[in-house]
């Protein structure tokens, strides 16, 4: 099955690249501030949560100041949630391609996720400035960011394929996904550290694969430590099961896309 995905992508690699490029280009052409939204969005989110939880409620965050904690949380979370949002719409919004051309439709899912990478890189640049300001020195463990982001992308494509294929048949999904992503944001340690979850609930929190991914990413960047083995393993297993399930569902429903969309 994995081989099948790989050969499909390889055969349509130029189409994938062109779609990514189109996605990135059209996004920044239309918005007034263009590329700067990639930085302004997490900055604004971080600022709001920093005011509320950092200054007013004063969440205990251990050795790490709240601002870098919440900012790094948001850039890694936004990469996931924006990937999922655009992947969900990718089949229906490309109906002119879907109804007229024979190609593996997962290309549209992958292109909407890859199209989010420029945003991520731009916001990572800001994160580095914040790290310098707070005098947080990175260690070699910062390299964990790369495999962790890959797992995050796999998870995003799993969720994206799941909702995108259902969205072709039921447009209600378009309305459901943002609500679900908001709930998911609060259930994942993005605006708070994992430690602030009571001990007896931590296992449940770790069943959410985004917990291991987000904590791992934050550990790598802010603490300079490798990810927690147990959380990471759990995240990888759940992500893997989910991506297989999603892919099979997607491939099953794909046959009807061009007739229904």
């Amino acid at each position, binding site marked *: 099955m994995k081989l099948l995905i790989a050969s499909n992508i390889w055969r349509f690699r*130029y189409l994938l690249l062109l779609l990514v490029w189109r996605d990135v280009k059209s996004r920044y052409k239309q918005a007034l501030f263009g590329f700067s939204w990639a930085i302004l969005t997490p900055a604004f989110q971080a600022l709001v949560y920093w005011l509320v939880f950092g200054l007013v409620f004063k969440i205990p965050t251990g050795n790490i100041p709240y601002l870098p904690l919440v900012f790094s949380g948001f850039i890694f979370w936004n990469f996931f949630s924006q990937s999922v949002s655009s992947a969900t719409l990718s089949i229906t919004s490309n109906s002119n391609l879907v109804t007229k051309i024979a190609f593996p439709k997962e290309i549209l899912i992958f292109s909407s996720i890859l199209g989010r990478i420029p945003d991520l890189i731009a916001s990572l640049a800001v994160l580095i400035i914040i790290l310098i300001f707070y005098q947080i020195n990175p260690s070699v463990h910062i390299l964990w960011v790369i495999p962790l982001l890959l797992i995050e992308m796999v998870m995003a494509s799993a969720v994206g394929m799941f909702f995108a294929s259902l969205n072709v048949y039921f447009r209600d999904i378009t309305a459901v996904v943002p609500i679900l992503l908001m709930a998911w944001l609060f259930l994942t340690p993005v605006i708070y550290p994992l430690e602030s979850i009571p001990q007896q609930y931590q296992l449940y929190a770790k069943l959410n694969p985004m917990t291991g991914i987000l904590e791992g990413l934050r550990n790598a960047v802010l603490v300079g430590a490798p990810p927690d083995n147990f959380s990471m393993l759990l995240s990888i297993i759940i992500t893997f099961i989910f991506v297989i399930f999603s892919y099979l569902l997607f491939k099953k429903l794909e046959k009807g896309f*061009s007739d229904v969309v």
Partner: protein
Amino acid sequence: MENAIVINNLWKKYKIGQPKKLGDVLPLFLFRQKLKEFWALKNINLSIKKGERLGIIGPNGSGKSTLLKIISGVTAPSLGNFTITGKVAALLEVGTGFHPDFTGRENIYLYGTIMGMELSEIKHRFDEIVRFSGIKKFLDTPVKYYSSGMYVRLAFSVAVHLDWDVLLVDEVLAVGDVDFQKKCLSKIEQSLGSKKTLILVSHNFDVIRKFSSKVLFIKDGKIQKIGKADSVINYYLKHV
């Protein structure tokens, strides 16, 4: 001679009024209502040899376009199967595979890549494609601002420069002006050769006569008659 396309007992069903909201699904589920079905193609059996040029005629809604859509792989048959040997290029609707927000230049690349061309191949033929289309001036304009004639010109220019074994053409030519139509038809004629297969859907009997070695008349999703151009066209004129 080897077969290019073989179609066995192929049926295609469409459901009328496919629900798009969960609210529409509930009554279907609760009262066990069934969606209305429409068979666009009924038991199609057909084999097309390499190098053959098949013209397809039939009234609107007879299943011509559905058949081409299935052969091109855009939609799947409901029953039956088909096999194709070789690369398929399809011009099913005007601007098939074009993206409205992309410029003419970008769409040449997009369409080429969709047809499985390598980037280097497209680059290599790019100037030729542009020259053929005659719309060099608008190359960097998004195609959504193109007139339908320009759209067809660009689409066709890319398609005729593709490397294909089977070309599917669905009444696309009707939109271009007479000169461009002639230019395209002669280009297709040049590239046809003995091993390339053409399937052409048209209401223009002159074009059908000129290009087809065999004509298929389809109506109500069923093959009515297949054979030499003149006899099938005469049969068609009597029976429609």
